[in-house]
């Protein structure tokens, strides 16, 4: 089986890898690039645990081939913090206990960061619908939604 050579950028780093044409971006991130923060919950685009942004567009990395990443710019949960400084969303998720087991957290953080960049002042309903593709089984979403709304308010004040 011939492997495909791919050159891409992940979290600001230029990277190259060889992948089987059937391997997804998620497979590549985890198994080739050791970026295991991105999780596989379903492999069918239904849970959002594998959310990443590709050229600033929020996608499920399980629904994109590794080969399609050629020439793109990918951001994962590992790229959200600025060095040792956590992103305000990360801080607020800890403070609000917006996670219990934490398996959905990377995907939810990537997704909510994308939301706040697009819409800094979302309503509760908008946050809920934006995150409808990010399943959380522990929290009932309550504390997640509160953390997102409060982060958005803080970020609006700060800007």
């Amino acid at each position, binding site marked *: 089986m011939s492997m495909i050579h791919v050159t891409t950028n992940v979290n600001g780093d230029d990277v190259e890898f060889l992948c089987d044409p059937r391997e997804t971006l998620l497979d590549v991130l*985890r198994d080739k690039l050791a970026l*295991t923060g991105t999780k*596989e919950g*379903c492999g069918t685009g239904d849970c959002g645990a594998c959310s990443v942004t590709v050229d600033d567009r929020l996608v499920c990395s399980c629904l994109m081939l590794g080969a399609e990443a050629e020439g793109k710019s990918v951001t994962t949960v590992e790229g959200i913090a600025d060095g040792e400084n956590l992103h305000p969303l990360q801080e607020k998720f800890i403070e609000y*206990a917006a996670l219990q087991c934490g*398996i959905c957290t990377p995907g939810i953080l990537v997704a909510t960061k994308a939301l706040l960049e697009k819409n800094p002042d979302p309503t509760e309903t908008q946050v809920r619908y934006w995150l409808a*593709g990010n399943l959380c*089984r522990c929290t009932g*979403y309550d504390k997640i939604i509160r953390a997102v709304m409060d982060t958005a308010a803080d970020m609006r004040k700060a800007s």
Partner: protein
Amino acid sequence: MAMDHDKTNGFKVVGTRPNRPDGVDKVTGRAKFGADAYAPGMLHAAIVRSPHAHARILSIDTSKAEALSSVKAVVTRADFAEGLTGENWNILENVMAGDTALYDGHAVAAVAATTPLAARDAAKLIKVEYEPMPHVTDVDKAMAADAPIIRAGAADSSVPSGLHANVVRYHESGHGDVATGFDEADVVIEDSFKTEATHQGYIEPHACLAQLGPDGKGEVWCCTQGHFNVQKVCAALLGTDSSQLRVTASEIGGGFGGKTVVFIEPVALALSRKASRSVKLVMSRSEVFRATGPTASTSMDIKIGMTREGRITAAEGIFRLQGGAFPGAPMEFTAMCAFAPYDLNNVRQIGYDVLSNRPKQAAYRAPGSPMAAFAVESVVDELCKKLGLDPLEVRLMNASKEGTKASYGPRFDRIGLVETLEAARDHPHYSAPLAEGQGRGVSCGFWFNHGGETSVSLALSEDGTAALSVGTPDIGGSRAALGQMVAEELGIPYEKIRTTIADTATLGYNEISHGSRVTYASGLAAIKASRDAVQKLCARAAAKWGIDEEAVVWEDGYAKPSGPNAGSFEPISLAEIASTMGQTGGPIAGHFEATPEGAGVSFATHIVDAEVDDETGQTKVVRYTVVQDAGKAIHPTYVEGQFQGGAAQGIGWALNEEYIYGEDGRLQNSIFLDYRIPVASDLPMIDTVIVEVPNPGHPYGVRGVGETSICPPLAAIANAVSNAAGVRLKHLPMSPPRIREALDQQANG
């Protein structure tokens, strides 16, 4: 250990809301879950599963797979221990089928290869020849005379004669005389209910990395609620020694009972033993649905009698549960929990454990209790409606309290049901006006909670900090709560304590994180271990001062003379004593190894408003309030989180989640697209009220809180939906087609 009244009056750390110790790891992607471990030279495994609900396995041809250079090992049942009995045999039979595939998704072989894709491709080359047999997946049909026998001779001695061979266990309990009780009633309602099987729905599929050498020494890394149990079961299934197998629990991406069970670890170990390389095995989502344990599905008959004033005179329930092709459906819990909220003179409950061609059921958050509450609380609601009585006042009138003889036998110690009912009645939600098309429902729920074998260790460092090692995987923030209890006892800041989930080589046996036991039992153990360490700290101070150990007390992180008679010495801090411990007698550590028996039962009352679109049968939950007795909330935010999470899972179970089997006995909805758990836009905020009626069996009064929260929602939502739609829903989930059907039937008389 009894409650410590001195301590509970002046908590400094307990009851506060510090950040969880694993928070930063979990928001940055650093936290390592089951599938996040990699070993040098590791192989990847895939499992071959039965496409039949029930079939004899005639042959397994692995030659084509083994011929591939990428394939390093193939295993079948022949690669596991022989001669197992009892539950070990059941587990092995489920982990890898013997001569018969018992359900769609049952494992029949496994392969390890150099890449995940190579393993999946190789699995497709393993040819299994099946002879399909008749199957049954519905509990009532499995008990019927014409049902195929799933496993002859599986019934135990509890089963009365004359029942179908698929009935494998029987339970009967109660007290008083229900016939007399029903005679005393002004109204008696009798009705039948069904609930479909649901899955725990944790987002992290089962995953492990295993290695087992020819010397019988092995290592397992896996996501589990109980790594000591994994060690014990794997050793039995592989025919090796427990202590030679070291099991480490990864971070766990949700369990809810579903990860109390062993599925893939023995398979990975068997492959590793054969290939002499580490093997990683990760389930797909579809495998999780098809082959791991969902709940039991149920069929229930309830009969309750009530006086005009609202006093319940008698109650009777029959509970039939199928738990898949193996004994173990939690029908005794269903029976025992059913009437627990009520103080009854006459009560009787019967349970049946029934085999069917479905995966082996596993615990799911208060296993068996939510279904019972659905059936019982629906009938109680109908009685209230018929008699024109307020549903909360009727529950208060009949509520179990301290001293009540429980429907399942013992007398209740101090409990908080009445307090939750009063808090619900007085909550603004209960008196808020409803909009057009909305209905309100309430329900109580009950769960036992559990203690269990527990071992912890607390080591002090020379810099005055402390490391707590526990053996109960953290499934909801328990490391924070345990650290708080140690901080409370030692009198040092919470931030100075690190709590770790230790591997099986580090501590004595720890029972699984189940039964809402962690904050209770590991918490009690952490307190005891802290006091053990404090005693040693006091001894060091006593030696320094040249006074008796008994003359030293520990207060706020300092050893102090107990009073004027003990002498006058400057208090010494924990840090000071620890800094010289190497010279004053050696390391200081505290321990606890025992089986705490004082777990306190807990009750909850939920209020829910639902809106039903009667044209489409769609239900929207518009307001939800959880009121639950936590005994003592160590970390109130995480207690709220348990309340909210249980309610959300209950909403899913009530409205849309179900295992759907086709005529062919195959599971039809094995992905999240069609197994519909609630998404963010489905739910409202979930309001919580923490009631604190201390558990006399814990030094701080802690009751388990993890499970009770899923007991009332099914019933509360059924009551709300029935009130909104004007028709009683008796079959869960109350999916739109079922609600429409009920409306149609009512309209057609």
